[in-house]
């Protein structure tokens, strides 16, 4: 009896000092402090552990990731980059089934419309002619490629792999934060997180029916094969990586290994008479489908950046001949421009004649005079970001910036208004997260990156996705390069 009593005291202590956040949406706790129903099992499971146990498990999973080399590189002065493990949080994020169904429908709807939009932009440009999206917006984008004009990619798919970022606002609703249409990364962490979670808490899985994530590699392969050039029965599919010093190299090698296809670098490939080959010990081998993790501008020095050593000279010509499929199609970046983002609801209505299922965050485009005026007057209440950068770089959060920072930023906007957009400061929902320095669970802001695959007559959304968590107290920036971590994300099956 005594023992169980002391245990139940330990129980209370795990979450005893957990601060409930006013004005924020907590994923785990109701405003009253009660645990939400889908988290009840996890909570009672965690309460069997002491903080000491949790600390030990935390170290155990860290070591697991470290030894497996589940790391990413942070760009710095050091050419090789510094290797870090991607922090993994032990407390899973849970999405109830009904909530997920809505998300999945919305993600598919959005990506279908985006594909039709891209096809239109590179063909008749009807949407521009109809005045739904301003033509200057498209023609001024660096990602709009003349090389893609009037070209039909196999199956008319442009964005085979896309990552839609979502947040939950304090009203409890999901909002789309941005679309990532240029080979988004992060999916390897989804699979590694699930493995780590299973190793750390095998018993926890008995209490839930959780949608699996391990079918992602095979789904990806079937999508990649579905868009192979005409007449190729058993296509040779490869993943193209910039190399071992790229920040996402772990993911590239992980995907190649789990799909069972070759990981190649630009220097392994060459073009001969409009076909692409890889250099092997037995001589040249033809390549049919390239899932490239190299940006558009580096992919073909004959078309784009001449100084690129990561790409393959002449590959765009092979692509246009239909002799090789490049995934995602070049030129998709024009649609994930953060200024184009504001038009996506209109784009969905235009092509699908449907109401958008998922909400956009209201966005002010600095190039519009009215919006620009609003931004200059209300910068303290806005998040301002450059339209064409990723990784959380160059973002200004109005209520946290100093006066000088804001002034400098306004100067930058003034010099290039097309480059900046602003949004109201969304309060990302918070989730209990084990914080090492505090040795305790504390609320931290999270978002969700979903992964959507589209092929010829195939669509797939990975159930769950990557819940990224801003580990710095109060921080809203969840990117791994800026001190973010991640959580295993469970979609419940019932």
């Amino acid at each position, binding site marked *: 009896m005594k023992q169980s009593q002391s245990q139940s005291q330990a129980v209370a202590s795990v979450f005893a000092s957990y601060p409930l956040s006013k004005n924020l949406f907590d994923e785990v706790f109701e405003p009253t402090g009660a645990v939400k129903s889908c988290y009840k099992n996890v909570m009672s499971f965690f309460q069997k552990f002491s903080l000491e146990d949790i600390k030990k498990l935390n170290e155990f999973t860290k070591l697991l990731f*470290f*030894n*497996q*080399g589940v790391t990413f590189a942070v760009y710095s002065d050091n050419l090789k980059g510094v290797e870090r493990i991607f922090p993994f949080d032990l407390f899973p994020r849970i999405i109830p089934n009904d909530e997920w169904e809505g998300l999945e429908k919305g993600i598919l709807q959005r990506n279908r419309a985006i594909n039709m939009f891209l096809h239109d932009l590179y063909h008749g440009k009807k949407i521009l002619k109809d005045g739904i999206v301003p033509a200057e917006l498209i023609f001024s984008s660096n990602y709009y490629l003349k090389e893609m004009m009037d070209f039909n990619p196999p199956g008319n798919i442009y964005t085979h792999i896309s990552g839609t970022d979502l947040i939950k606002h304090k009203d409890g609703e999901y909002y789309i934060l941005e679309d990532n249409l240029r080979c988004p990364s992060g999916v390897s962490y989804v699979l590694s997180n699930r493995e780590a979670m299973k190793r750390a808490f095998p018993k926890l899985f008995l209490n839930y029916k959780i949608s699996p994530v391990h079918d992602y590699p095979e789904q990806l392969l079937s999508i990649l094969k579905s868009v192979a050039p005409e007449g190729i029965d058993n296509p040779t599919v490869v993943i193209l990586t910039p*190399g*071992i010093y790229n920040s996402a*190299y772990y993911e590239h*090698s992980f995907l*190649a*290994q789990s799909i069972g296809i*070759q*990981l*190649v*670098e630009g*220097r*392994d490939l060459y073009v001969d008479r409009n076909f692409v080959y*890889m*250099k*092997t*010990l*037995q*001589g040249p081998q033809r390549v049919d489908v390239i899932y490239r993790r190299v940006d558009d501008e580096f992919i073909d020095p004959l078309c784009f950046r001449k100084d690129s050593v990561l790409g393959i000279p002449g590959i765009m010509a092979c692509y246009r001949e239909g002799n090789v499929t490049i995934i995602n199609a070049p030129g998709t970046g024009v649609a994930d421009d953060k200024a184009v983002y504001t038009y996506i609801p209109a784009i969905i209505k235009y092509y699908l004649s449907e109401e958008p299922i998922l909400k956009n965050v209201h966005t002010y485009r600095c190039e519009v005079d009215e919006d620009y005026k609003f931004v200059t007057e209300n910068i303290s209440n806005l998040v301002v970001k450059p339209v064409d950068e990723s990784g959380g770089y160059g973002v200004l959060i109005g209520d946290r910036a100093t006066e000088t920072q804001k002034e400098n930023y306004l100067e930058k906007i003034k010099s290039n208004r097309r480059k900046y957009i602003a949004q109201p400061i969304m309060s990302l929902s918070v989730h209990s997260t084990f914080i090492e320095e505090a040795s305790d669970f504390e609320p931290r802001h999270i978002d969700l990156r979903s992964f959507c695959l589209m092929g010829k007559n195939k669509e797939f959304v990975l159930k769950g996705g990557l819940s990224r968590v801003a580990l710095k107290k109060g921080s809203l920036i969840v990117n791994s390069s800026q001190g973010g971590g991640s959580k295993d994300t469970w979609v419940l099956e019932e």
Partner: protein
Amino acid sequence: MLSRIANNLFWMGRYLERALHTARYVNVHYFSTLDAPLLSRKEFVLDSISSMTGLAYEYEDKGEDLDDEELVYRITMDENNPVSIKTAIFCARENARGARDTISSELWESVNKFYHSVNAYNHTNLNHEQVLGYTDMVVDQCLIVQGYISHTLLHNDIWSLVQLGMSIEAAGQLTRILIAKAKDILRVENQNLGKPVETYQCITLLKSAEAFDMSRIFYKNVPNLTDTLEFLILNKDFPRSLIYNLEAVSTCLNKIKMIKGNEKGSPEFFAGKMNATFSYLTVEDIEEDILPFLEKTLDDVYKLGELIIRRLS
């Protein structure tokens, strides 16, 4: 098999083997200084280490005179020294990383762990115990990695390329060890120090190749120079002998599916020629002129290495 990956696998094997031989040589020699017989003084042993590893060229050029601690640091931990153990492990891991989708996760994890254990020693100098601990750890980890190489890879091109790298490096390293020791022994002979010193040198030589116990079992005698040379160069059953590794090089070259050449100047031809020569060699032939023979052998091993690298690229 992509040519780039083939190179990664080959070099991973070479760097691992290089780390293994260097670690064992330092371990055996550094500790033999503690109870070395008359005149096998410390400096003498340290000279031997620096010439075997090639460090001698590095610092003699700069006119530096290294003390023993500095020398051991340079050879074990110095990441700026291209022949240090640390550099070798770093390079082995980078090559494994480049071929990560081709090797097993178990092998990758063992190489990655190895790299992190080497990094965990970040002292600027090592005391006696740490030199022992560090080199022991390196030898152990190398053998663990080799275990994953033999047991978790398909024994086709993938394994053959790693093995090719390990065998050619082993042949080269053993020849370097033999040259360094032959020089030691000749120096001793000139000083007329007699039998015990020769025996001592033979024992450190055998131990440097983990061959002491097996040679005792094979010859049932206290080691002498003739037996030691015969065992390390010509014993076909001992996996660290020169002839064993040269044969392995030939076998691997023939096993790897690649565009082959049997003409003069191809690696297959050259390896076959070396093997044929060694098959009809006696220890008496070798003893006639030890140093020139070993130096010629080292040149040939390097030449073979060059031919293989050219073939893989």
